[in-house]
């Protein structure tokens, strides 16, 4: 379950590109993800006009040539809402994945290298893992109030232990290697040993884990929105588009199914991309390391 020190280093230039090209599923997922990201960035150009435009006479129209994903209870174009919502949802996923990776890496490096820290830090990590991530996030966001920062922080918190465990496992297996011993013997400060000699071994599994966290964070944002503690209605995200569909679901199922499937395709593309990267970068990194929220 733990990654080991034999993970191929990223020193060979272009190994990521190489990994993508040798795996058609991963390549396709990457392209799909790029298309979704672009559709979110250029949402205004693609859909034209204001996604919040309320048209009471056009409410709850089924999907058709005029409105691809139908309209919601206020007569807003669900397709436009979904594309605009992608901006926030992808951003939340990206920020949470990067923050989780960064914080988890720092803690993992320290706890793996400084042995006296280990028992305390790992018990704290076990404690965080014992709290259901979604409940913690719902509680935090509802208490502090929804904002980009609180939602990202709430999602990140639950992801930290997995990264910490991953990095710590790599550090533990690499620290006894002769090149690390040699570096220490030469009197290189611990900080530099960690950064220059140990961190590079963590990069490959970290990239894979960050991809999975990105997928999990997008899902978490949607669940927060669905449970009613996501972004306020004036900021469209996949979570609150889905939340608003709940009330009219029986009459207008497309208000949930269209954004839900769009979200699912995105998350699936990210997961398949992660699987492809894992197969190429580190075949030993088991999916079991990703028991997430």
């Amino acid at each position: 379950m733990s990654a080991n020190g034999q993970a191929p280093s990223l020193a060979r230039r272009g190994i990521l590109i190489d990994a993508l090209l040798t795996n058609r599923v991963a390549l396709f997922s990457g392209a799909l993800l790029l298309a979704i990201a672009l559709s979110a960035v250029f949402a205004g150009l693609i859909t034209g006009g204001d996604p919040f435009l309320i048209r009471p006479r056009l409410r709850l129209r089924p999907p058709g040539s005029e409105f691809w994903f139908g309209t919601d209870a206020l007569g807003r174009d669900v397709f436009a809402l979904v594309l605009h919502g992608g901006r926030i949802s992808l951003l939340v996923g990206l920020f949470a994945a990067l923050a989780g990776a960064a914080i988890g890496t720092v803690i993992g490096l320290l706890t793996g290298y400084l042995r006296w820290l280990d028992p305390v830090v790992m018990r704290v990590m076990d404690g965080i893992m014992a709290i259901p991530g979604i409940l913690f996030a719902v509680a935090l966001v509802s208490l502090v109030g929804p904002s980009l920062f609180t939602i990202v922080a709430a999602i990140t918190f639950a992801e930290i232990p997995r990264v910490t465990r991953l990095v710590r496992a790599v550090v533990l297996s690499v620290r006894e290697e002769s090149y690390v011993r040699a570096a220490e013997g030469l009197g290189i400060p611990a900080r530099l040993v960690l950064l220059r000699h140990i961190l590079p071994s963590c990069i490959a599994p970290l990239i894979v884990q960050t991809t999975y966290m990105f997928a999990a964070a997008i899902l978490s944002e949607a669940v927060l929105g669905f449970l009613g503690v996501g972004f306020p209605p004036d900021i469209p995200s996949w979570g609150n588009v889905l939340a608003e569909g709940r009330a009219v679901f029986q009459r207008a199922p497309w208000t949930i199914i269209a954004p839900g499937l769009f979200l699912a395709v995105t998350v699936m593309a990210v997961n398949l991309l992660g699987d492809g990267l894992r197969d190429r970068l580190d075949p030993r990194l088991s999916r079991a390391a990703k028991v997430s929220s």
Partner: protein
Amino acid sequence: MAVPVMLVVATIVFLLLRLSPGDPALIIAGETAGPEALARIRAEMGLDRPLVMQYLAWLGEIVRGNLGTSVLSKIPVLTLIFDRLEPTLVLALSAILITVVVAVPLGAIAAWRHNSWIDRAVMMLSVVGFSVPAFVIGYILILLLSVKADIFPVQGYVSPFADPLAALRHLALPSITLALVFMALISRVTRSSLLEVLGEDFVRTARAKGNVERRVLWRHALPNAAVPIITVIGLGIALLISGVVVTESVFNLPGVGRLTIDAILARDYPVVQGLMLFFALIYVGVNLLIDIAYVIVDPRIRY
């Protein structure tokens, strides 16, 4: 092992609710309360004491099994939890049952027929299970099988002790919804764990002795692949608890998950704290049981 972990959980839960903005006394008393009423409530709840003293007092109470009383209903938190436990337990247990009955054989067959179409199909289903949010699956099931086909009731809960047949119909869609993510996880782990075992010498020996493939797979290979599978079932309890909260909201089941969301939205602090501790205790307890189960599954493991 379990005690320090629960202590960490208690500390996080305490800090989460006390360090967040918003005055608990104000929430309890309502916006219109005068300063004297607020001061009285603060004194009653011990909110006027230093944070460390509050923490220690609170910890002392929960160690003695007192999780406090709900601010809204004035009912003890423990009573509230036990009153709502049945739907959640029934839902979670049936989801685990479905998972073990379906996902373990699926993963085993995928490993046995490695790289075949059935392997790819199982892996693809597993990715789908990880990617489609549970509530979207729940709503699609409701739409297809309840609204359009009218096979299952849309929402609601019937106790299996009151009317087993109706309970089964009410439970079918929620437990399938909840099981899907779990199945994605377990089938993957079963497959990868079994793939490793199938390459071992004793499997070759078992085949050479003339065992039929079915017996090699179920009797020789699977028990030796069991430890990682059981480990992940334990870790997956966290996944299951999050899933319970969402599923109960979709299908309108009056379980502990709904209680949690209602308490959070109403800012009923003692109930939220109690529930988080309760869920963490379940997670820690299940994983403790699993540590014990290792000894039964794999006699080489001793503590």
